[in-house]
């Protein structure tokens, strides 16, 4: 019985604290909805930002850009939206849910991802067309799927696809487990994956550079704190953290 009581009490306590935090004027709680490819870098950015701004606490909500765009249109409570592409940001802007214009704060590039140690010795996009090679990507609608198609088109390579994964993590998992031979993902994902996969660079003249864009949502009651966060992203300090994680400058 006491166990049951404590089980009920814990969420209740949580509610009380959450209530305190939002009604307290001295600290602002910022809710940031960000694309999952920013998970690692934003956790660092957030820590640094909160150190510099003790009056602001940050809570991140990471999911795919398209899921977040859909959730925001369904009333997801958030102050800031950071998208991995312009297209999903446009969905939010076009619906009139963004305050002002979105701002670019980082760029990325693509790399071929292969199994650890590159057992098939893949060193060019052309090799991805090898018959029997298991190549995995995402549907065109998912940002990485669109970029992959663009890079392959630039290189004039046609591949046979074994599977259209739901997101970048699906590609990475299948390649890391050795079940798929290759895929194309963001350079930063390969860095974040550490030792579990190997990356093969793509020449600059055929590579693409996805833009990461951010904006404050119309319904945010913390416009000021949100603006400060966005300014921090493009500050010298913020950009240094992005480059540590393999992102390019805005």
């Amino acid at each position: 019985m006491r166990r049951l009581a404590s089980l009920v009490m814990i969420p209740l306590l949580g509610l009380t604290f959450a209530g305190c935090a939002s009604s307290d004027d001295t600290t602002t709680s910022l809710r940031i909805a960000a694309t999952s490819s920013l998970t690692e870098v934003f956790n660092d950015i957030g820590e640094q930002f909160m150190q510099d701004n003790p009056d602001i606490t940050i809570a991140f909500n990471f999911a795919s850009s398209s899921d977040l765009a859909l959730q925001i249109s369904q009333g997801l409570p958030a102050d800031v939206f950071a998208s991995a592409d312009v297209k999903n940001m446009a969905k939010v802007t076009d619906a009139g849910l963004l305050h002002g214009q979105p701002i670019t704060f980082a760029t990325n590039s693509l790399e071929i991802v292969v199994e650890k140690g590159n057992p098939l010795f893949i060193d060019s996009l052309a090799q991805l067309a090898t018959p029997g090679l298991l190549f995995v990507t995402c549907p065109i609608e998912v940002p990485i799927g669109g970029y992959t198609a663009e890079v392959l088109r630039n290189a004039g390579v046609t591949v046979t696809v074994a599977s259209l994964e739901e997101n970048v993590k699906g590609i990475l998992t299948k390649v890391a487990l050795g079940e798929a031979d290759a895929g194309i993902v963001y350079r930063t994902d390969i860095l974040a994956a550490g030792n579990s996969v190997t990356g093969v660079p793509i020449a600059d003249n055929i590579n693409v550079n996805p833009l990461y864009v951010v904006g404050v949502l119309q319904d945010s009651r913390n416009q000021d704190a949100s603006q400060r966060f966005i300014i921090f992203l493009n500050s010298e300090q913020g950009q240094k953290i992005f480059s540590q994680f393999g992102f390019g400058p805005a």
Partner: protein
Amino acid sequence: MTRQRSRQSSLPWPMLALAGVSVAFFALPFAGLIWRAPWSKVTDILSEKSVGTALWLSLETSLITALISCIFGVPLAWLLARVNFPGRSFVRALATLSMVLPPVVGGVALFFSFGRRGLFGQYLNDWFGIRLPFTTAGVVIAQCFVAMPFLVLTVEAAIRQLDSRYEDAARTLGASRLYVFRRITLPSIKPALVAGVALAWARALGEFGATITFAGNLPGTTQTMPLATYLALESDPEAALILSLLMITVSFVVLVGLRDRWLGHQRNDLVS
């Protein structure tokens, strides 16, 4: 008939009220789908070739899964219910583990076992050249892993509740265990068997996580309706709504049809 009616009128109202809430809880999400569906585009979306391909693949794989679950699941249910062997509860827990596992984790576990580099799959690959991930067979494996426990649990419960004296009597009259199972056990558990097959089939039809993880997603080969629906949500939310409704309609028709055809008769038999 009269007895049933009098029983109905004496139902306590708090139970009725709570049951009503349950009905509303199940009905409202479907009402929401119907409410939001872009009805003017239904014919356009449904006439797309990719929809037919995904629906057909879904029906094909889920029916094969139901059949396989039946062939392997019923003997397992019988073993768990009727044979007392050491480690029985362990085996039962093992057979139902995939029900509590997040399907995506199940998919990864399938990689480790049946994948090209898996515990068992590497030999399939090296010795026979059989590769399960990214194939239709892989879809069936993923569905069986997730759906079969529903049949096993349902059938096991039914066999346990069966009065074993009929089976014992038949045994003393010289019937073999297999004969007793075929002529006495099986006919008596028919309603539970039908329910179990229907549950397993429905679960297989809706399977998403293990399938996309283990079998991947490719139209015509491994893209079942749930996968097509989920991915349409990214690109064309209106199409996703229509696809969801199509899936619901198909399942609903089959489940209601099954119940009336099989369980309806069975119940009448028992009453008369």
